[in-house]
């Protein structure tokens, strides 16, 4: 089936879950990433059970703490 991940069309297997996509896409911070599917946030506790459908648009929103501290150490 075809889905859109971060604006890019991708062919993925039927039955792929959000968790499966996170692993497949090698998301940098898999333990803490916000996922939206069709502009709706998916609860992190349901990543493994949320099955993606043909045409779904998925976005990964990464936490960026920011700052440039540590250079003084």
């Amino acid at each position, binding site marked *: 089936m075809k889905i859109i991940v971060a604006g890019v069309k991708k062919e993925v297997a039927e039955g792929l879950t959000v968790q499966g996509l996170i692993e497949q896409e090698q998301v940098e911070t898999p333990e803490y990433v916000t996922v939206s599917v069709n502009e709706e*946030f998916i609860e992190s506790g349901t990543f493994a059970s949320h099955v993606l459908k043909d045409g779904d648009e998925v976005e990964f929103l990464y936490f960026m703490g920011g700052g440039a501290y540590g250079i003084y150490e």
Partner: protein
Amino acid sequence: MAFTNEQLERYSRHIILKEIGVKGQKKLLNAKFLINDACVMEKKPLSHAGIIRFKGQLTTILPGEGPCYRCIFQSPPPKDAVPTCKEAGVIGAMGGVIGSLQAMEAVKYITGAGELLSGYLLTYDALKMEFRKIKLPPRGKGCAVCSDTPTITKLIDYEQAACELKH
């Protein structure tokens, strides 16, 4: 919302970062939530931005109108879940790029010109030279601080909570 002198001293340390290193990193991460919560509670607009390595993000938070920071990230990340700037680094020019965009959002808010990033997360990938504008869900859906039935009604002193954590 009145703060005691002790609270002002403690909260300002989150932002001013007198402590550098691991404690400072924790405080900066937590400061984002503190500032967001304070702005939502006081109904003040907030420009949020973050940068790391070659990536950045930006959104404008208008309490009561669009989603807030906690709508996107419910609580500070667990230890070691995300890289810190000390670990990952950040290119200096990222501050200029994203900082200037924040300034532009402020100018637009003050003048009423154009469209603000309320309801959108702008992301920037410097290596790909790519900006994306990600539409966010509407404000409040289950959000602990900005929904119509918030569960967070007081500022959280994450510093105290962090000191109690055992690593």
